[in-house]
């Protein structure tokens, strides 16, 4: 009983995020006709599956105390690479997918290796990665490349009905699989727990004899994998490769992770939180579209304001929680003299 409660209390930030998401969705439903529909809810997943996948990779990076600014560019690069391989080189889709994923992993491992081996700040190395991947996009082509490949077309147009006439796309399924895998890796594998340990205290993790060097490199490899996969999902979404895709998307990914309750200082948070972070981010965007009269510039102010409001509420709830949780914490270490 006790154990269950304490696990819950560790998940509280995530639950707050979920609660706030529900409130936001409810406000939208009450304010706008057509907002409260199953399809509108499912659209959140259809439209954000790539962000969800990026977010899962980014969650690991941030929990380890690092950051990966290259995700948007790597996503763009994999859209370029896959469209170019499909349309210009006419490769088989079943070959293209692994090659693109491998390219993403390789880029990630490369950055991870430099960060780890030379003790350099992830911010700078992944910023270089951001430029590098973006530059590679232009090297592939500065034009957009439309994808006419049948497999991709099918993936893009497929709609699977789930509740009545409401549908999801294959990307949603891919996103779901990634989330489940992410949750599993973070909670139930040695790799996942080492990521948390590194984020908690890297020096301690080394002294505890954990494979810190290897794990750190792998974290960026994993993020590279997620970025590449998100790129493929993105091409299912847009059926094209475009060098300017995903500009600034790294900030979206970071924001969703952090809104989901993961601390940028590392060690605290989780994949589930990121799912809700993505939902909140998506809902903010839908709300603004439904509102529909904001000028471009007011749109930005509104997004800023909603993020602010959300984070503020989150902080208020969190400080309440800390205040209340203090009691049991202080009592536990007490023990009788022997």
């Amino acid at each position, binding site marked *: 009983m006790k154990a269950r409660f304490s696990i819950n209390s560790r998940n509280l930030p995530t639950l707050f995020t979920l609660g706030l998401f529900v409130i936001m969705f409810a406000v939208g439903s009450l304010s706008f006709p057509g907002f409260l529909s199953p399809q509108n809810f499912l659209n959140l997943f259809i439209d954000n599956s790539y962000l969800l996948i990026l977010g899962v990779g980014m969650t690991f990076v941030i929990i380890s105390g690092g950051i990966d600014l290259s995700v948007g560019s790597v996503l763009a690069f994999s859209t370029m690479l896959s469209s170019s391989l499909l349309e210009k080189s006419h490769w088989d889709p079943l070959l293209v997918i692994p090659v693109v994923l491998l390219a993403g992993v390789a880029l990630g491992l490369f950055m991870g290796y430099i960060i780890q081996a030379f003790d350099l700040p992830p911010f700078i190395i992944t910023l270089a990665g951001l430029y590098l991947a973006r530059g590679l996009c232009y090297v592939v082509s500065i034009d957009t490349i439309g994808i006419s490949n049948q497999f991709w077309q099918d993936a893009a147009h497929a709609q699977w009905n789930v509740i009545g006439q409401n549908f999801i796309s294959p990307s949603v399924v891919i996103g779901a699989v990634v989330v489940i895998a992410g949750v599993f890796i973070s909670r139930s594998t040695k790799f996942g*727990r080492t990521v948390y340990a590194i984020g908690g205290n890297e020096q301690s993790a080394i002294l505890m*004899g954990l494979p810190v060097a290897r794990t750190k490199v792998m974290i960026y490899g994993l993020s590279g994998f997620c970025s590449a996969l998100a790129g493929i999902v993105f091409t299912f979404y847009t059926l094209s490769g475009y060098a300017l895709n995903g500009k600034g998307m790294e900030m979206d990914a970071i924001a969703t992770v952090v809104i989901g309750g993961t601390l940028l200082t590392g060690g605290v948070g989780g994949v589930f939180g990121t799912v809700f972070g993505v939902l909140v981010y998506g809902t903010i965007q839908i709300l603004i579209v439904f509102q529909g009269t904001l000028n471009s510039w007011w749109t930005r102010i509104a997004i800023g304001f909603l993020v602010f409001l959300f984070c503020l509420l989150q902080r208020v709830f969190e400080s309440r929680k800390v205040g209340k949780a203090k009691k049991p914490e202080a009592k*536990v*270490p007490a*023990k009788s003299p022997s």
Partner: protein
Amino acid sequence: MSDKAPIVEMRKISKTFPGVRALSDVDFRLYMGEVHAIMGQNGAGKSTLVKVLTGVYKQDSGEVLLEGKPIKPDSPLAAQKLGINTVYQEVNLCLNLSVAENIFIGKEPMKLGRIDWKTMNRKAAEVLARLNITVDVTRTLSSYSIAVQQMVAIARVLDSSAKVLILDEPTSSLDDSEVEQLFKVIRKLRDEGLAILFITHFLDQTYQISDRITILKNGDFVGEYKTDQLPRIELITKMLGKELSEFSYSTNNEDKAKASAKARKDISAVLQVKNLGLEGSIEPFDLDLYQGDVLGLAGLLGSGRTETARLLFGIDSADQGDIFIKGKKSSISSPRHAMMAGIGFCSEDRKNEGIFAELSIRENIILALQARRGVLKYISMKKQLEIAEDLIKSLGIKTPSAASEAKQLSGGNQQKVMLARWLATNPIVLILDEPTRGIDVGAKLEIMEQILNLSREGLGVIFISSEFEEVLRCSTKISVLKDKAMIAELNGEEMTESGIMRTIAGGR
């Protein structure tokens, strides 16, 4: 035993840090089935020797043999794989993980390719139970005190099937009962054939547990001795390089201090506390501290001594009660307020709450004084150096220069830096939470001497230590805590070890 080949042999190990020769040509041998203590002053090179053995540092010269074969571990992980398990001096765990994970991470029980959390939690509770600790192992480690954390660090290495066990000052924040429990386990492991390297500054403990002693002094190898053939006084002389009697400390002095403090009782109270408390942290208590008083807080692990200190220093804000400083009611709602009112506080958790690892020793020392004077009244570099060097000298901080980074100091010397920081501010009331943690015999006496000196000059001191003996020696009166409440105040004749124990056992 000694006719067998040693399991670990370190030959002519040397290690230099910029400006410091931490080890020069040190030999060390460890046999199976023995507890081997390394003794030496702060900065003698004990931790460095351990870190060379476990691959944290690479020696400049010399070689390490394990079971006769040369080894070159390049990381703690590599050492662990060779069967060398270590508890390092500073608690090196991950506060964000659960207690159970801290014990098992890296060697989690697996089931069907996934971590078996249930088994892990159960086993963790079992291991801790062997050390007589009952805590909720699913909670994050950060919710427990330093003492519990130290027990967890020990539990982590007990669990495995190692050949060599290294414990670098594992007992520095444990109370007697915990230490006894730990020793029971250590003896059992020794009898099972493990080789155990044990570092402590407590002479009693050394004699209780160790079979053999290696003494280091200033990075030099002094000698290796059988414990039962080395009288205490000789050990101290060899460690310090001088007779203990050279120290000015004497009981006589102490009595005088106590007497004079009593005589001055009618003078002014520097700190008075009325009904101060915080729900869930510490129950309301009263407290009077007069000029020259040293108030010892005695209690068992987790009895609420640290909480009392935190409340007085404004780290936690009380939800009831008042604090009077020199008779004036003061609202202390933050450490800054407390400091401005003339209170100083040395935290027990020097790594997380005390030391600025990347700042120089000079900066570490003058920081609180500077904060007290305000941003604009910058202390000139000359003055800073003067203050810092004065304190470095008077506290005997071992460092090549005041400009070295604090993280380069040995653990005990870091502790002295924290004390120096508060001494520099010239406080009215000084709260010391385990100030002697990790400090060598010589320095310990010096520090207690300092405390008594200060109290003679009119400073009020609140002294927290897990060692009753220390508390008794320093204090003019003692408050006993139990289960987050102050249960009694002991004065004069009542101030004996058995008096404290009786109070704890009997009270409430």
